[in-house]
């Protein structure tokens, strides 16, 4: 049993140990396997294929397992390390200590959006992007997207998702508008005036690699998703009588048949079910 801490409470030494373990996974090639896995399992919902990671009910359990796999790798190098979480409703500025030289480094420079500060700056020699959709070998960010500014999600926006007592709703994709915690927190469901919320908006606010399928190239990916994981806990605590949906696979003839994961169906690439991911007590807890 170990604790995932709020990133703002980490000591300088804890930040150093976390980034050192991440850099070692990058050096030994493990890190880029995680980047590939994330890209591979992003299947858009117009495709008639199985969607496990995004635009689907298993968004939460799939990412929980994805983070656990990564955290296991980190902890095999340093058993004192865990993935910190970033509460973006509170630490909502490019001036946050999260983006400081001694932690993740800051935004990208003008022009090519190359991150120039912190341990993941290309110039430091330890962070070369090998799995990407652009030619950039350097990590890119564009915090707050200055040319078309956006803000990080507010507490009210997050609460709007947490308050929904229904886990997810048909058609179990990015168009599920009739309610559903999953689509509201993943961020496809939003009032017309806003269009994007919560998880999706955070990816956009960070910019650079985080807007694309190879988002884990930016180590902030893990801190972002640890908070998303924590919010799933909050939702479960608020709605103890609600559960993962769909409980049963959509029947043959349903357009979503074979395209979404029901409660007891295995999620690739690990063959674990959402039911097995509903609880993490005994493994880790949030501070």
């Amino acid at each position, binding site marked *: 049993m170990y604790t995932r801490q709020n990133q703002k409470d980490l000591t300088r030494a804890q930040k150093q140990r976390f980034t050192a373990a991440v850099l070692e996974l990058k050096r030994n090639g493990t890190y880029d396997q995680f980047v590939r896995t994330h890209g591979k399992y992003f299947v858009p919902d117009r495709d008639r*294929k199985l969607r496990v990671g995004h635009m689907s009910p298993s968004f939460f359990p799939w990412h929980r397992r994805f983070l656990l796999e990564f955290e296991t790798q980190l902890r095999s190098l340093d058993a004192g390390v865990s993935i910190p979480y970033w509460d973006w409703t509170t630490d909502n500025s490019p001036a946050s200590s999260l983006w400081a030289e001694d932690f993740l480094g800051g935004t990208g420079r003008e022009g090519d*959006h190359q991150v120039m500060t912190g341990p993941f700056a290309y110039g430091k020699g330890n962070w070369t992007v090998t799995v990407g959709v652009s030619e950039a070998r350097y990590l890119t960010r564009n915090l707050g997207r200055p040319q078309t500014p956006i803000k990080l999600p507010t507490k009210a926006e997050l609460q709007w998702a947490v308050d929904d007592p229904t886990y997810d709703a048909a058609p179990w994709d990015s168009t599920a508008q009739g309610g559903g915690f999953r689509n509201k927190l993943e961020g496809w469901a939003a009032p017309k005036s806003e269009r994007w919320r919560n998880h999706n*908006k955070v990816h956009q606010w960070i910019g650079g690699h985080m807007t694309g399928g*190879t988002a884990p190239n930016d180590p902030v990916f893990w801190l972002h998703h640890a908070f998303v994981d924590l919010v799933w806990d909050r939702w479960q605590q608020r709605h103890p009588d609600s559960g993962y949906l769909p409980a049963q696979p959509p029947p043959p003839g349903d357009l979503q048949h074979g395209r979404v994961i029901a409660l007891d169906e295995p999620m690739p690439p690990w063959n674990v079910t959402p039911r097995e991911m509903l609880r993490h007590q005994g493994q880790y807890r949030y501070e």
Partner: protein
Amino acid sequence: MYAASAAPLTRRAVLRSAFTAAVLAGTAAALGPVLRARRPRQTLTPAPLVEESYRGRHISIDPVAAAVRIDGRPLHVMRRADGSYLSGINHFQSYASPLELARAAVDELGTTQLAMAAPHHG
């Protein structure tokens, strides 16, 4: 020997094809406006590329295939269930048209070029 016996067949086939093509061409000429309106793929000339210069980058869009290039490099285009567009650059936001998608990719790329070959999805 085979060539000699095959030749008349081939010739007939060619003539038949030419005749069929002529009839089809006539039909196509008559129905042209209707076909073009309903099914753009039926037109004999390829649909013109939509091209523009945006923030110093060259965007080209094949509106039939919804294929997007930025400075000649292909942008991986995907569709959402509601018909809107996502790309390899923008996975967490969708756009109403390929042109908006291309401009958003340029905004995110800055001065960086797309890769020649993008990683594929499952």
